[in-house]
């Protein structure tokens, strides 16, 4: 079933590429339709899994990756509809395809969730953090396009991106909006995680993962680092008067850290979040 949404995402990526390179309106409409079809297939898949196991299917990093891809697809589609701007699709869809390869190749096993996760806070915590990640992914891609366009205008060479991207102002506004939303959800997710940890006496649990729920765990530590970076970005913009280009760079770097935390740390290094 994962393969179906993967195929839709991949063909959407190709169509977005054609739309961007040749500026073909028809390819653009096709791309949006394919991406929407992928998101629908993905929704169906997640819904089926939810019904099968009775809780939101995001125990384990692979399941979380799938859920993240789904959120990012929806968030991007929403952005495209609300801004009527398709240029970002060519940057977002390859990320969807790459990440969706993970659950497609290594289909997550659905089973009863570990005892420590049996809490109503589980769904809220994971969902808000993943939604924050999706916002940061959007901000990153918008930031990258900002820098590309900025360089062309500064260099007085108005070429490829000049003809295809919206204005710097629009990109900056979209970037800041995505970062603000992401920051709010990351904050909420982290706060819920902390509250949850303080409510439950994880130390007393016999689950080694629960015992590792400390600031010293790389996953938790890097999550705070990324929260600090995005907080700084918002602060620097408002209080220090950092310009839009620096914001764009911070968005790109921020998501780099998020991705690092999500995949390599999530799969190999964390002792607390490896469900």
């Amino acid at each position: 079933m994962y393969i179906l949404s993967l195929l839709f995402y991949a063909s959407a990526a190709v169509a977005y590429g054609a739309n961007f390179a040749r500026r073909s309106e028809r390819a653009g409409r096709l791309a949006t339709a394919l991406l929407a079809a992928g998101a629908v297939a993905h929704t169906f898949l997640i819904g089926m899994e939810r019904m099968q196991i009775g809780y939101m299917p995001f125990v384990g990093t692979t399941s979380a990756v799938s859920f993240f891809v789904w959120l990012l697809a929806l968030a991007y589609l929403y952005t495209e509809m609300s801004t009527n701007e398709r240029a970002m699709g060519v940057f977002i869809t390859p990320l969807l395809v790459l990440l969706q390869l993970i659950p497609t190749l290594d289909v997550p096993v659905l089973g009863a969730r570990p005892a420590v996760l049996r809490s109503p806070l589980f769904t809220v915590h994971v969902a808000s953090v993943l939604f924050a990640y999706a916002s940061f992914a959007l901000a990153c891609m918008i930031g990258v396009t900002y820098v590309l366009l900025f360089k062309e205008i500064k260099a007085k060479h108005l070429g490829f991106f000049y003809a295809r991207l919206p204005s710097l102002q629009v990109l900056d506004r979209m970037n800041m909006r995505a970062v603000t939303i992401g920051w709010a959800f990351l904050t909420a997710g982290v706060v819920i995680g902390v509250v949850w940890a303080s409510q439950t006496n994880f130390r007393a649990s016999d689950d080694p993962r629960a015992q590792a729920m400390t600031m010293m765990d790389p996953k938790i530590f890097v999550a705070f680092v990324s929260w600090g970076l995005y907080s700084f970005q918002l602060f620097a913009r408002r209080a220090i008067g950092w310009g839009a280009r620096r914001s764009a760079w911070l968005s790109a770097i921020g998501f780099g850290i998020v991705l690092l935390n999500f995949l390599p740390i999530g799969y190999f290094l964390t002792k607390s979040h490896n469900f």
Partner: protein
Amino acid sequence: MHLLLLGVSHRTAPVELREQVDFARQGVPAALAALADRASIDEAVVLSTCNRSEIYTACNDPLAAAEDLARFMADHHGVDPAALAPHYFRLVDHEAAAHLFRVAAGLDSLVVGEPQILGQVKEAYAEAAERKRTGPLLNRLFHASFTVGKRVRSQTGLGEGAVSVSYAAVSLAKKIFGDLAGLHVLILGAGEMAKLTAVHLKAQAVRRIVVASRTLQSAELLAGRIGGDAVEWRELDAALEASDIVITATGATEPVLTRPRVEAAMKKRRNRPLFLIDIALPRDVEAGAGDLEQVFLYNIDDLRAIVDENLARRAAELERAEGIVRAEVEQYAQWLRSRGAVPTVVALRARFEEIRRAELQRLDGKLAGLSPEAKARVDEITHLIVEKLLLTPTEQLKAADDPSTIVAYSDALNCLFSLTAGDTERKGHGRAATGPDEDETSDPPKTRANP
């Protein structure tokens, strides 16, 4: 039926003459009404812009109709026909179609690729269609021309990029700021170029334009002309801080906006973007200012380079645009030619069917002994034979691709089978006298324009 175009354009006539024959002066509806009285033409669309006055028509005899139209053009505008004669051009059938398609694509415009013309073509057609002055030929022609215009715009870069310095500045500003409404513009100096760019920006509904000049008097003069405010020269720093776009055009020999000065303003602006357009010679803005964060500095040479690049790019797209025009002309011409064969094909089939029925009736007595099933078989077989006989000639007729061949074939068939091909001709003439008739317009143009 033939397509006929008669007109004058910026390529064939000087502006004084074009003004004299501009249909906009008396209104296009008046011209359409006057054309409706001409028996020589059946359909008409009048395209009138400042660069062209063109009449597109459908007629049976292009030579006579062209003479009639030339007379009409002179009479309607009260111009001496002899003065007009050397300047008008007339094109028939696929050449007329090619001309309209090139016009709609912006290929025949003064500034190649300009987008307004497609809208003007659409208006001209709508005006005529509303008054029921269009029929199958012009309906299909104009819808095809809209397709050409749209395809050229979306599939080539013909209309892309600014081709004048002040427009290049405006489009850059749009790429930096998005919407220009709400922006503050500062103009240093009171030169002509500064005024021109300011007028372009004003058209984008910027919030405020401030003019600063060495003497308040000249600043006030320019501000008054473009609808802005004048400020004293010593208030320059405050004005700079409040502005998003600055156009400099002073006669100063030393840079007015030095790097430290711009840097100080940017600090106060909290690095909100600042677009500096330096059109002065020698330069008004120190080059180093362009390296500052969120400062975009373009001087007149940079803008000219952009314009040149855009012009070169447009030229490179010309061939692709012409290719689109050729393809669409070919399609339209094919349709036009196949229309030429249609009456003959219809008449031929009717003739054969008539003979078949007559023979069956004549043999009715001999076939009386047959069962109803057998009779039906006979009917079917004779029908099949006729169909088989007609298949090749029909295909050959429709595939003939030059009009003279079609005419030759049609004449031969008319003569050999004594067809009543006058049918369609009569219909055509009747229509000319009574205006558009139901039969001709019953064919919905839209479905044919987008087959």
